[in-house]
């Protein structure tokens, strides 16, 4: 018997018809894949759910899955908000995503190889040289260097959204040091702990196989002449916001988590300082940006890098994962050429859609952008974490004028895209004690190795927790959801 004051979780769910809701269709009926899940959740009292939600939060907190927030006085630890209502991706749909992201990652890899070798795509007139030479992430030290297996972007994070037309679009390719994979696994664990019952009704893919695949990828690109490679993860240190993830990956791969000061280069070989002396290191999964890798080669004042590391790499005595200089293809301006890049190297049509992009560096595009800012999202090409983005229809007249000014100061730095309507997902909002629609995206994780590729069957669904907000990055107050990929 339910108590008389029983309040359903979805009782105050207010569906906006103009948004693509992944759970409810236009007529507010629950979509088929979500029906069972919906029934189970809707059967819970709000009190029970609040209780579960608090327990999940405490569990994250106690496990130290936190990041630091600096307020006026002291550092505070906060957990990344986690939503207990999972997102489901149907098996067929996933198969397309998987093929699509592999295609993209391979094309990007071929592109990076070309940029650091013959630059054929530029000589063919398809991508302007300007774009490369002005990129802060273009590392000339990588010219004519052949990474083991020809792989640059061993690890890629591709950000996708579902638009109001129900189709997936790629928003960004992250191939420097994409983060977030540990949350995929912790979200799954947290959901299992809290609501194990729901798993009985769905047949879903595991996400815990990421680390073993990552280790295999790392081993597949071991330097020549090494039998059993010693692999490590290098982190900037405990104060890095992703430190938790670095330690998680090292732990689950069973390899050392090192900092720059643990490593030393001697005669172009890399060693770590252990309790029994120096031990040679062969493959490094680095979670340090290019510029900080080696103070002798890049930024002189980097205290987190290893002097001489680049020479060791250049000599083929150690493999860096991802390769230095991959960032050249992670630029948002390069993104806009993805259809051409895929066609040029693979001779294929893109499986996943690209959002149409206007380059402010092109006079005609610039004109269009300046005239239509209110309908566009303007982004700087080289910022990560959702910084510097202006969403046109949210701006006042004065703000639009400011944005125009900023663009005109350096048009090369900006691109603009139509405002994409990210799909929405039912998300528990603590302040309202009920579920509400919130925008979500999806970051997938792809691994490329020598004769091996892997896409994590799940990925990180990020939620913009502020009502109506389209920016899902955790640094901007986003949360996340467990993501279920159904078996076919």
């Amino acid at each position, binding site marked *: 018997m339910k108590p008389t004051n029983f309040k359903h979780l979805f009782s105050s769910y207010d569906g906006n018809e103009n948004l693509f809701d992944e759970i409810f269709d236009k007529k507010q009926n629950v979509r088929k894949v979500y029906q069972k899940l919906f029934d189970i959740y809707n059967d819970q009292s709000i009190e029970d759910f609040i209780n579960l939600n608090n327990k999940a939060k405490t569990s994250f907190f106690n496990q130290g899955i936190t990041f630091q927030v600096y307020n006026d006085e002291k550092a505070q630890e906060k957990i990344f908000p986690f939503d207990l209502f999972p997102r489901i991706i149907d098996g067929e749909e996933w198969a397309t995503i998987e093929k699509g992201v592999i295609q993209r990652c391979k094309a990007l890899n071929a592109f990076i190889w070309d940029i650091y070798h013959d630059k054929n795509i530029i000589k063919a007139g398809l991508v302007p*040289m300007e774009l490369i030479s002005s990129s802060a992430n273009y590392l*000339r*030290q990588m010219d004519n260097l052949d990474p083991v297996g020809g792989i640059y972007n061993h690890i890629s994070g591709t950000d996708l959204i579902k638009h109001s037309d129900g189709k997936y679009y790629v928003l960004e390719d992250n191939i420097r040091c994409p983060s977030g994979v540990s949350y995929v696994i912790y979200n799954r664990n947290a959901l299992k702990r809290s609501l194990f019952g729901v798993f009985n009704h769905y047949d879903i893919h595991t996400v815990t196989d990421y680390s073993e695949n990552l280790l295999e990828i790392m081993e597949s690109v071991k330097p020549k002449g090494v039998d059993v490679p010693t692999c490590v993860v290098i982190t900037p240190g405990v104060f890095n916001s992703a430190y938790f993830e670095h330690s998680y990956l090292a732990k689950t791969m069973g390899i050392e988590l090192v900092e720059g000061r643990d490593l030393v280069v*001697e005669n172009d070989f890399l060693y770590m300082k252990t309790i029994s002396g120096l031990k040679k290191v062969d493959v490094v999964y680095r979670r340090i940006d290019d510029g900080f890798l080696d103070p*002798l*080669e890049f930024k002189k004042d980097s205290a987190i890098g290893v*002097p*001489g590391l*680049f*020479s060791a790499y250049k000599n083929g005595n150690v493999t860096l994962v991802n390769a230095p200089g991959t960032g050249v293809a992670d630029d948002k301006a390069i993104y806009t050429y993805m259809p051409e890049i895929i066609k040029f190297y693979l001779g294929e049509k893109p499986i996943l859609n690209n959002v149409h992009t206007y380059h402010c560096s092109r006079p005609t595009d610039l004109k269009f952008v300046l005239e239509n800012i209110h309908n566009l999202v303007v982004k700087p090409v080289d910022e990560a974490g959702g910084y510097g983005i202006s969403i046109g229809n949210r701006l006042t007249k004065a703000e639009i004028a400011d944005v125009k000014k900023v663009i005109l100061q350096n048009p090369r730095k900006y691109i603009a895209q139509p405002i994409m309507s990210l799909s929405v997902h039912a998300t528990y909002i603590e302040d309202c004690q009920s579920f509400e629609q919130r925008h979500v995206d999806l970051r997938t994780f792809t691994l490329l190795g020598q004769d091996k590729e892997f896409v994590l069957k799940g990925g990180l669904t990020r939620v913009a927790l502020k009502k109506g907000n389209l920016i899902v990055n955790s640094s901007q107050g986003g949360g996340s959801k467990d993501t279920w990929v159904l078996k076919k």
Partner: protein
Amino acid sequence: MFNYTIKYTTENTYENPVFESYWQFMVTPETNSSQDLISSSYSVSDDNSIEKSINGYNFETTRIHTKKPFNNLTFEAIFKLNKSEISPIEPNPEFTVEDDYKAIEVLDFKVDFEAFLNATELTALPKVAVKLFEFETSKHILDNVKQLNTWVYDLITFKAGETTEDMLLETVLEKKEGVSSDFVHLFCAIARVNKVPARYVSGYLHQGDGFFGDSEMYAWAEVYIPNLGWIGFDPGNNILADHNHIKVAHGRDYKDCPPLKQIMYAYGEQESKFAVEVNYEQ
């Protein structure tokens, strides 16, 4: 043929002990079509070991990693090499002036020489200065570059001393004085805005014949002239690079090839002395 002996020395003193440090020297002459390195020997104080390595731009470096506290460090390198006479350079008679300018407009050319066609932080001309020196398209590129060499030489007064090598051109143009690297940065910047590839060269200058130079390392430039190749220019002396110029390395600007990169944690007073001796027998 000139038989060179080059000696590079540095002596560094610190008030407080330095516990750990890295030193990367880029002072070894390269072997190229006009110079042939015969031998090189290095020595360093205490029993620090010396490593050789190739840096990101394919030049040889010499490294020291000190692991024991020290107050004093000296380093010495001695090179022997043969340098041949460089014959005077004239435009390639098989090509016309128009061929020159056509060549630098080809996309492949722009892509292949991309690194030496774009401004860097140290070779960025202030907006007002972009048109300071414009090439005359009626003349061969070689002749324009020669004129540029003279123009830079006339504009800037050589002044050794307090300045560092990483001065911005804005300051150089304002003061109209500087060291060899300032001449080279200005020279390269102007060649590049005129679409001609130019690179910074670090090396040694034999000062026997009364040229401006300094007791430290010297800088000049190389320009890629279509149908001729890379040609060395020394705007600090208003001459083309010749048998007195011993090349060590090149880059887009000074920052790509400084003679010494150091990483250390030292506090208190410190003093560093550098000396270069360049001699030859014919």
